[in-house]
């Protein structure tokens, strides 16, 4: 690298180092996950079947339906990953398939709208107290 003679190499060095440190500081918070409280990641079978994990947005659904519709009428248990949902059941009209059938909500051919999670995510409720207590290393995820 050619540097004009009037530039003090020490100052340049310090400046470069400082800018790298600044960049590192700015990038640190970027490693956190800011997903919505209550988003449910379901990875019971997805990645074993070479699909991305499912991200279920609770917030989106509660604007449209009260808790009772899914947790009463459709039989969803209050437990992330506790419903043993698979695509066969969905296509058969159970669970998500009660609405995601192409009539009420978009149908099962839109794989990537649900299977949209980062690879490697485990089944959990994002931002849940339980997860932050049981696995402190995963706080905020």
């Amino acid at each position: 690298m050619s540097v004009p003679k009037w530039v003090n190499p020490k100052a340049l060095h310090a400046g470069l180092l400082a800018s790298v440190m600044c960049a590192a500081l700015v990038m640190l918070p970027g490693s956190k996950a800011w997903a919505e409280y209550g988003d449910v990641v379901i990875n019971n079978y997805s990645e074993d079947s070479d699909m991305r994990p499912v991200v279920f947005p609770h917030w989106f659904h509660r604007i449209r339906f009260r808790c009772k519709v899914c947790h009463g009428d459709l039989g969803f248990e209050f437990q992330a990953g506790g419903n043993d949902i698979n695509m066969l059941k969905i296509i058969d009209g159970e669970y998500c398939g009660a609405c995601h059938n192409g009539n009420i909500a978009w149908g099962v051919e839109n794989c990537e709208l649900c299977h949209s999670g980062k690879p490697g995510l485990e089944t959990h409720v994002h931002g849940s107290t339980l997860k932050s207590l049981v696995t402190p290393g995963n706080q905020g995820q």
Partner: protein
Amino acid sequence: MMFRIASVTLAAVMLVMPLSISAQSKDPLSFNRLMADPETRNAPPLKDGIHDPDNPATDRLQSPREAFSALPDANAGNYVDWVEALQDGLINPRYDLQDPDMSPTVMDLDIVREVKGSMPDVVFPHKEHTEWLDCANCHPAIFIPQRGANPLSMAAILMGEQCGACHGRVAFPVTQCRSCHSRSKTPADEAATQKEAQ
């Protein structure tokens, strides 16, 4: 000459930047990096850290920030006051899978739970709960519908049992102590508690 001035300015900025950052961190009013920056709340799926940006459909998903813009604020969870949003008619979520016109049978009954510690007593409002849920969602699996039959504990709630089945997962989180512990003890209550302790 212009290049020289620009270079000197750049070098000066590079040197001063770390100084200003260290000055900021010493400021007693500086922001705690461990807390979520309000700017990062309700992030769009492409930036929320759990959706895969490489997934071709991720950018078609709605941003919660956009959906929440007209809803009342809260201090935690989704930063939306869902109960107020429903009661003020800002949202009208459907109550029944089959019947679009069915409305919930709301039960307006407060249950007061006297707590042993120094926290205010808990007032459980059936009203707000029955606006969203069916009786069978909680009774009898989570709570036996009988007075005195459900000894509650914060430890169990924190571990996702009892109220923690929803609060701390999707309903307002358990950090909102005073949302439940909302009835101040009267001096008579406190005297009774002290007497009991003796």
